[in-house]
C-alpha cells in the first residue's frame, strides 16, 4: 500500500472515532442529573430566572434537536458558546492550548532524554547498580502524586532556596513577547526578547520536571526491554565481532533499532501529558487547557466540556497518526 493511501485511510478512521467520541460525550453530559443553568446562576437565583435562561439557551428543546444543533455547528467548525463565559469555545481553546502544549513539549523532551538515557544504562549495565537505581527512580516517578512532588519542589526551589519562580508562565513585570504562536519560548525567540526568553525558561523548569518525571518511567522501562532485545540479536554480535567500538555498537547499531517501540510510548506519553496536566497546571498556576476542561466540568458548562474533550480526542488521534506514519516509514511491513 502506498503511504498516501495509508494516511488517507487512517484519517477517515479518525473521523469515525471523533464522531463516536462526540456522540458519547454528548450523551454522558446530558445524562448527569443536574441543571447547568442553575449551577451558573448560583443558589440565590429565583426559579423564574433559571427557567427563562434555560429557554434562551435552547436547553428546553428535545435532546435530539440539541444534538442536531450541536453537530451542524460542529460541521461548520463551531464548537458552540460556553454557557458560563458566553465566549466561543473555539476561542477559549485557542487561548489556553498553547500553554499546555508548551508544557507538554518541554515535559516530553525532558522525559525522552531522561527516560532513554536511563533505559540504555539499565540495559547495558543490566542487574548492576545503575539498573536498580533506574528502576527505583522510575517507580518513584510513577507512584509519587504529582501534587506532592510539585509542592515539594516549590517549597525547596522557590521558597527555601529562591532559585526558581513560584508559578505562572512569566514574571509579573516582564514584558511578554509579541504573540505569534502562543508558545512563549518560541515567541520570545522569534521576537528576540531575551529577557522574556530567560523568564519563560525559568518558569518552565519546575512544572517540566514534575510533569516529565511521571512520564519518564514508562519510557525508561520500554527502552531497557527493547535495548536488551536488540542487544541479543545476531547483527550486534557480528558488529562486536568486527571489532567496532562498544559505544558505536550501542548508540548506532542497537539504539536505532530499539527506537521503534519507544516511538509509540513517546506518542502516547505526549498525548497523555496534553490532557493530564491538570494538577501540574493547578500547582504552578499554569493557564492551560487541562484546568479549563476540569473547571468546565465543575460548573456543568456543556459546550466547553464537549469542545474540550473533542479537541483532546483530535490531538490524541493526530499524535497516534503521526506515530503510525513514523512506523510505516521506519518499517514498510507496518503499512499492511
Amino acid at each position: 500500500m502506498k503511504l498516501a493511501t495509508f494516511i488517507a485511510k487512517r484519517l477517515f478512521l479518525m473521523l469515525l472515532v471523533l464522531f463516536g467520541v462526540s456522540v458519547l460525550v454528548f450523551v454522558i453530559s446530558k445524562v448527569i442529573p443536574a441543571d447547568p443553568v442553575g449551577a451558573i446562576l448560583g443558589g440565590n437565583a429565583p426559579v423564574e430566572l433559571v427557567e427563562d435562561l434555560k429557554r434562551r439557551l435552547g436547553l428546553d428543546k428535545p435532546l435530539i434537536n440539541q444534538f442536531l444543533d450541536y453537530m451542524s455547528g460542529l460541521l461548520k467548525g463551531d464548537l458552540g458558546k460556553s454557557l458560563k463565559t458566553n465566549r466561543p469555545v473555539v476561542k477559549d481553546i485557542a487561548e489556553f492550548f498553547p500553554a499546555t502544549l508548551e508544557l507538554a513539549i518541554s515535559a516530553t523532551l525532558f522525559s525522552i532524554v531522561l527516560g532513554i538515557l536511563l533505559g540504555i544504562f539499565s540495559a547495558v549495565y543490566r542487574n548492576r547498580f545503575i539498573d536498580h537505581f533506574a528502576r527505583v527512580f522510575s517507580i518513584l516517578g510513577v507512584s509519587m502524586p504529582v501534587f506532592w512532588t510539585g509542592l515539594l519542589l516549590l517549597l525547596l526551589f522557590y521558597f527555601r532556596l529562591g532559585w526558581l519562580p513560584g508559578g505562572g508562565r512569566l514574571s509579573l513585570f516582564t514584558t511578554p513577547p509579541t504573540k505569534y504562536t502562543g508558545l512563549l519560548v518560541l515567541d520570545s525567540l522569534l521576537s528576540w526578547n531575551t529577557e522574556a526568553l530567560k523568564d519563560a525558561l525559568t518558569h518552565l523548569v519546575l512544572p517540566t520536571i514534575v510533569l516529565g518525571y511521571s512520564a519518564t518511567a514508562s519510557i525508561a522501562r520500554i527502552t531497557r526491554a527493547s535495548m536488551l532485545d536488540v542487544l541479543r540479536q545476531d547483527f550486534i554480535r557480528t558488529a562486536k565481532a568486527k571489532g567496532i567500538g562498544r559505544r558505536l555498537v550501542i548508540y548506532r547499531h542497537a539504539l536505532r533499532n530499539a527506537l521503534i517501540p519507544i516511538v509509540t510510548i513517546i506518542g502516547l506519553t505526549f498525548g497523555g501529558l496534553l490532557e493530564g496536566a491538570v494538577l501540574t497546571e493547578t500547582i504552578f498556576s499554569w493557564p492551560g487547557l487541562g484546568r479549563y476542561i476540569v473547571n468546565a466540568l465543575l460548573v456543568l458548562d456543556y459546550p466547553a466540556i464537549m469542545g474540550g474533550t473533542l479537541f483532546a480526542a483530535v490531538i490524541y488521534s493526530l499524535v497516534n497518526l503521526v506515530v503510525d506514519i513514523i512506523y510505516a516509514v521506519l518499517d514498510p511491513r507496518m503499512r499492511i
Partner: protein
Amino acid sequence: MRKTAVLLLATILLFVAFAKTPKDTLVIAANTEIFITLDPAVCYETFAAAVVTAAYSGLTKIEPVNGVLTPVPELAERWEVSPDGTMWKFYLRKGLKFSNGDPLTAEDVVFSFRRVLKIRKSPAWLFEELGLNAQNMEETIYAENDQTVVLKTKPLAPNIVLSIIAPPWGGIVNKKLVLANEVNGDLGEAYLTDKSIGAGAGPYVVTEWKRREVITMEANPYYWRGQPPLKKIIIRDVPEETTQFLLIQKGDVDVAWNITTEQAAQLRETKPSNIRLVTTPGQSNEYIAMNTGWGPFKDERVRLAIKYAIDYDAIINSVMRGFAVLNQNFMPIGYFGYIELNPFKRDVEKAKQLLAEAGYPNGFEVELITSTTEIRRNEAVVVQANLAEIGIKANIVLMPSGEMYQKYRQQGHQMIIAGWGIDYPDPDALAKPFANYRVRQLAWRNMWYDDYAADLAERAGIEQDPERRAQLYKELQEYWIYKSPFVMLYQPIAFWAVSNDVIGFEKACEGYTLVFDFTKISKK
C-alpha cells in the same frame, strides 16, 4: 556532558531575580477560576464583583457606617423620594466623567439600568424586585434632564432601593462607548467582559484580564473623588491555596486571597513578622433546612427537636476552626433590625422528649444532602453524629452544587446543608427568601407555606417608617426562629493573609462579599 549541565544550571540561576512588589502597586494572589465576566450587568460572583465595583461607580455606594452597611451618595449627590416611596429623583454631581474623559450624564444612567433589564442575566432579578422590568422600563427609568434620573419603583422601604442600585449591577457604563462596540445587538456584553477602559467612572480601570493569568487595574485619572492611593492593582491567578501561601510568605505578593482555615489558624497562632491575618464577618450564612412537606418534618416539634440536637459550638470550633460567629437568626449581625437571639443550645434530653411527643420515640431515617466541599462534608458528619444521638439516622449524600441546587429548587430534598450569600445590605434581602414563600425562594423550596411570616416580611419590606419597620422585623425574627424549618449554624468569618506593608486592608474588606473598597488601601 557534566560540564554542560553545570553551566546550564548556573545560567538559569543567574537569570532569576526577585523583587519586592512596587510601592504603588498591590499584588494579589487569588483563585480567579470563578471569574466569568466583568460586565456589571452580568457579573454575580463575589470577588469579581469587587473588581466591577472598583471599575464602575453607581448612583449610591455601600459603606460601613458605625458597623452597619449603609447606602451613601456616590455619583448621585442627593435624592428625593415621594412619601409613598415610589417616585425617586436622583441628582447627579456636576462634571462627572468616565475614565476616558467622556462626560457622564443621566442618559448613561438610564442606559445602564435598562441594559441590566434587557440583558437579563443573574443580577436582573434584583432590579425586577424593585418593580422595574424590560416591559415597563420606558416609563419607570428615564432622564428628566442631563443631571436628573427618575426611577418609578414599587412601594418599598427606601433602604432597599438605595442598596440595590449600588454597584456592581448598578454600576454606570458609558453609553456612547458601549454602543460603539456593540456586536450583534449584545449591548456591548462581549466588549465589557474583560476590560473597562473608558467604560466606567469608578476609582479604577480594568485594563486587561488574561484569563487564568492576571487581571490588571489602574487608577482612573478622572475619578470624581480624585485618584486613589494605589496606582495599580494586579490580581494574579494562583489556583492552589498552598502556592498562594508560599507566595505571600516569600513576599512576591501582598495579599493571599484564598488561604485555607488551617493556614489562617496557623497565622493566628504563630503571628509571623512580615504578614498578618485580616478577618471580617462575612455577609452570608450557613444553615440546615428541612423540607416541611416531607414525612416527620411536617411536625413542628420534630423541627424544634433538631434545633436542640445540633452542637453549634462544635461546628464553629472544629469545622470552622473558630472562623465563624454564632448567629441563629437569618439576619447577619449589625443589620438594621437585627436582634440577638440564640436560644438553641445542644440539649439531647429536650430534643428526645420533643421527638417522642411528636410520635417518633425511636427516631426515623432521613436523607441529608449537601455539596462536596470539605467544609460542608465535615458539617454533615457532625450533624449526622448529633442526630444519631436522638435516634435519627441521617444518610449523607454529597453532590456537586449544581446537582444539589437542582434538587433543592424542585423541592426534592428531605434535609439539606447549604449557605446563603446576601445580595444587598437590607434585612429585606434575608426576610424575603427565608420567611416569605410567595417569592418562591428558600421558604418555598422547603414548603414552609406560613402566611403569618410571609405577611410580616411583606409589610416590613414596604414600611416607610424606620421605627415601625424595625419592630416588624423583631416580631418576624422572634416567630421565625422557633417556627421555621431552618437551623442557622453560623455566620462565617472571611479572612486573608496580608503583607504588613499593606495599610488599610481591614477597612477595605469590611462588608466583604457585598462590598470591597480598594480605595482604602495604601502601602508603606
